[in-house]
């Protein structure tokens, strides 16, 4: 153990360990290790398919239990009145380790099965009952609706009768008598009544019309209340219809059509008394049914409430059990010796903890045979594990999204904790906006415990996860805002300005002072403010960029020392450094030097540095405007240095490797190609004898073979990438300039477009305008400038870290440490 404490600088040193676990304690051991969350188990049976593994039966059983729990969850969620689910923290824990574990699981299984059976039965009866209720309700409506039709028909008949008794038409009396008899006849027509969905009525009518060639009389009316479908719970509007027709054939056709359209038919009697009797009966049956239904619903609900009390607990247990058995399936099962052999990666400094956990597990399970743990030597590359806390986690995940570090290489996530918020703030500098996001982050941190418990949405969850990043981003934005002297596009005037304004002149005169902190407020609102900030921010971004890249380049060195590659220091790092510094480091020095010179009293004109840099390449040895004496020679020398670095980078490393291989060949060694047979894990007898001697069961020999041509190609690509990258990456840092200018301009435009003109209201309308414009300004400031602009600055800062900085030192290609952990399983 090299260090006393874990550090984020390099990933944890890992050990491959082997565990011999007696079958009796296997379950409890894995449960204990899962609680600890510090071991990543390897699959020792990669060739065995999932159905042939040792614990398939158990997994199937747990799956069945999980299905039941899911079913309960569904039922509880579907319930309209919210069924209280007791949170896991309040439940009495179900102990699934120890000697009574098997019994607990059996009991749980039985309990789940019983609950399911009961619930299914209740659901069934509830459904049948609801179905019958629906039918009865429809029948009631049909009875009532048809009663209206009959009523109407009778009223018409009365009308007709009264007209018969009108003495003014005695001559036609006889005819009228006949007519009445014909109207009487209509009541002898047979009819069909029922209910059908409202939207289908027109189609239904048209189909009937076509089928019966118009030989029908149809009448319908709306049922005012919607009818609930007991299966889907959807509300359907229906209509009552009654169709008069004549003849069995016709009626049969109507019935068929009605059925095919999903209508329900109800037998209705033509006799009014019988109809009202039927209505009474239907109503009384409906009342009975509703009482039964209510009772069933109550029972079902109380059952669900009982389930809700321990649902979370069951869910947790089932999930853990599943994870445990899936892990056990990764182990090598030795039937003869009744032990399971496990292999896995653990952080070296945690081995003691793990051994303690193993002892605990043995004690808990009540047996005396402890699992044995011992370390293995291996050539495999261990997983990369950075021990993060809630503060560093967010920063690390930004960098992990680009690539997982190689095992024990320098972790850029450590430096990103500051450089990331800083580069963000350079683009986002504004005291006001910085304060807004800073206070949002402070709120999230203060309400951390509360927010952690409730489930946030995906986007809010992301913000919450990055709360410490946002905190630092806000803090740095306030600082850069002070430097830029920007607060919501306004300015602070703290010190004496370096410019005096004489009443006689429209032009500010320098008064010999320099504004000590930040940008002189005199620039604010000046006609040529942009000329100044443009030049200032452009130079600033070049300086910051070159320093950031130099810093990133230096991170190579600890890697080369750690992995014992001295060649890389003087064949890669040194020439790269010289190349970068002789061009861009020189540019930075020139920028800084030019600022320190007082050009008003100097004898020469201030040179344009960009032209100087271009001229340095295009016309070496010529300087138009001299910055300092001897500039010609220095520039030629630097150019030569940079030029030498290219072949230096290109050739040195391949040459040294070529020389080494020749030396080895010269000593008579030949590569062992073809003789390295990967050890087969299926060879159990051999394995049984070799278990003790400290070799891993599954050892894939995937050591890289350094082919000489590969080295050359790799080096050529690396060189070209670096040289071109040096130029393009420096240019890429100019995004700091562009974004910070854009941010400042946007906030200024927003101010003047909304609130700017309304600040001194004189009338009532002006006050209302100020309030409206003020709220518009505030919402656009938060939504547009803080969120959208912040997001864009965030992405640019991410890019600068991923591409510009990481390309200087990051090797990557590691695989992340994913330990078996019950706590982590919630996140997925």
């Amino acid at each position, binding site marked *: 153990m090299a260090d*006393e*404490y*874990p*550090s*984020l*600088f390099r990933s944890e040193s890992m050990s491959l360990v082997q565990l011999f676990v007696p079958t009796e304690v296997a379950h409890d051991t894995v449960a204990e290790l899962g609680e600890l969350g510090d071991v990543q188990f390897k699959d020792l049976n990669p060739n065995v398919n999932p159905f042939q593994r040792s614990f398939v039966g158990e997994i199937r059983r747990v799956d069945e239990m999980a299905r039941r729990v899911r079913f309960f969850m569904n039922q509880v969620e579907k319930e309209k009145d919210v069924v209280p689910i007791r949170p896991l923290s309040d439940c009495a824990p179900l102990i699934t380790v120890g000697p009574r574990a098997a019994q607990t699981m059996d009991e749980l299984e039985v309990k789940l099965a019983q609950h399911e059976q009961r619930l299914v039965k209740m659901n069934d009866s509830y459904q049948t009952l609801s179905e019958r209720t629906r039918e009865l309700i429809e029948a009631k409506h049909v009875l009532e609706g048809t009663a209206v039709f009959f009523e109407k028909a009778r009223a018409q008949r009365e009308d007709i009768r009264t007209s018969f008794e009108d003495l003014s038409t005695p001559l036609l009396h006889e005819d009228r008598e006949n007519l009445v008899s014909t109207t009487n006849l209509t009541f002898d027509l047979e009819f069909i009544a029922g209910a059908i969905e409202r939207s289908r009525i027109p189609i239904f009518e048209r189909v009937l019309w076509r089928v019966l060639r118009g030989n029908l009389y149809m009448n319908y009316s709306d049922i005012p209340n919607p009818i609930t479908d007991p299966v889907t719970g959807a509300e359907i509007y229906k209509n009552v219809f009654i169709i008069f027709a004549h003849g069995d054939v016709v009626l049969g056709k109507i019935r068929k059509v009605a059925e095919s359209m999903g209508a329900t038919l109800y037998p209705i009697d033509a006799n009014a008394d019988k109809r009202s009797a039927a209505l009474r009966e239907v109503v009384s049956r409906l009342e009975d049914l509703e009482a039964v239904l209510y009772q069933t619903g109550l029972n079902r609900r109380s059952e669900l409430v009982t389930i809700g009390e321990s649902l979370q607990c069951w869910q947790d247990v089932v999930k853990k059990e599943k994870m445990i058995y899936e892990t056990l399936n990764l182990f090598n099962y030795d039937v003869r010796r009744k032990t399971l052999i496990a292999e896995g990666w653990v952080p070296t400094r945690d081995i003691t903890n793990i051994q303690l956990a193993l002892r605990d597990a043995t004690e808990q399970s009540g047996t005396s045979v402890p699992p044995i743990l011992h370390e293995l030597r291996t050539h495999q590359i261990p997983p990369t594990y950075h*021990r993060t*806390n809630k*503060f*560093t986690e967010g920063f690390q995940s930004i960098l992990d999204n680009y690539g997982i570090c190689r095992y024990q290489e320098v972790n850029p996530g*450590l*430096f990103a*904790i*500051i*450089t990331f918020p*800083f580069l963000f703030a*350079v683009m986002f500098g504004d005291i006001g906006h910085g304060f807004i996001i800073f206070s949002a982050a402070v709120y999230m941190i203060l309400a951390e415990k509360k927010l952690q418990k409730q489930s946030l949405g995906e986007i809010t969850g992301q913000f919450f996860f990055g709360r410490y990043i946002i905190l630092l981003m806000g803090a*740095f934005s306030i600082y*850069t805002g002070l*430097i830029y002297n920007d607060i919501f596009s306004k300015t602070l005037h703290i010190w004496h300005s*370096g*410019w005096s*304004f004489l*009443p006689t002149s*429209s*032009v*500010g005169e*320098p008064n*010999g002072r*320099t*504004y*000590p*902190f*930040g*940008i002189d407020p*005199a*620039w604010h*609102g*000046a*006609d*040529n403010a942009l*000329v*100044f900030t*443009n*030049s*200032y921010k*452009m*130079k*600033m971004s070049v*300086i*910051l960029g070159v320093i950031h890249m130099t810093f990133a380049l230096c991170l190579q060195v600890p890697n080369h020392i750690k992995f014992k590659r001295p060649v890389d220091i003087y064949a890669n790092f040194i020439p790269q450094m010289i190349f970068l510094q002789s061009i861009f480091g020189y540019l930075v020095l020139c920028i800084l030097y030019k*600022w*320190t010179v*007082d*050009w*008003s009293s100097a004898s020469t004109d*201030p*040179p*344009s540095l*960009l032209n100087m840099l271009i001229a340095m390449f295009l016309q070496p040895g010529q300087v138009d405007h001299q910055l300092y004496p001897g500039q010609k020679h220095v520039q030629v020398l630097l150019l030569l240095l940079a030029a030498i670095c290219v072949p230096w980078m290109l050739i040195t490393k391949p040459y040294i490797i070529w020389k080494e291989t020749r030396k080895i060949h010269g000593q008579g060694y030949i590569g062992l190609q073809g003789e390295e047979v990967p050890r087969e894990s299926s060879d159990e007898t051999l394995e049984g004898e070799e278990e003790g001697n400290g070799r891993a069961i599954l050892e894939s020999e995937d050591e890289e073979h350094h082919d000489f041509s590969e080295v050359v190609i790799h080096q050529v690509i690396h060189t070209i990438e670096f040289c071109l990258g040096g130029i393009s990456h420096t240019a890429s840092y100019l995004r700091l300039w562009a974004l910070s200018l854009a941010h400042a301009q946007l906030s200024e435009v927003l101010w003047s477009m909304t609130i700017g003109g309304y600040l001194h209201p004189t009338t009532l309308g002006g006050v209302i305008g100020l309030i409206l414009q003020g709220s518009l300004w505030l919402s656009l400031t938060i939504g547009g400038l803080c969120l959208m602009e912040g997001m864009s600055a965030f992405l640019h800062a991410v890019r600068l870290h991923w591409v510009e900085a990481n390309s200087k030192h990051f090797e990557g290609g590691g695989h992340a440490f994913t330990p078996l952990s019950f706590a982590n399983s919630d996140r997925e």
Partner: protein
Amino acid sequence: MGSIFPVFFFGAIVVALMFGVALLTPKGPNQAVIRTALMLTLATCYLLWMITYLAQLHPLIGECCLVLVFWKTMAERGVSSPSQNGQEQGMSGRMS
């Protein structure tokens, strides 16, 4: 004219502080994080201040005519804004 002295003075202070932080951070599981964070914060904040200070040290007037027109200040002082602002129109500071 301002002096370049503060740049070196604060530079020295910042370097001293960085050394102090490097040496004095208490041992513990977060030592590396605290140390790196504080040192980088000092360095970045100093850099930004230094760049801003230096950029304003010797304002490039004369040839480059970085001239300020500050109407608001003028108005506040009760001076009617002079009409000869045409002279600054064609001016564009030569950027280096």
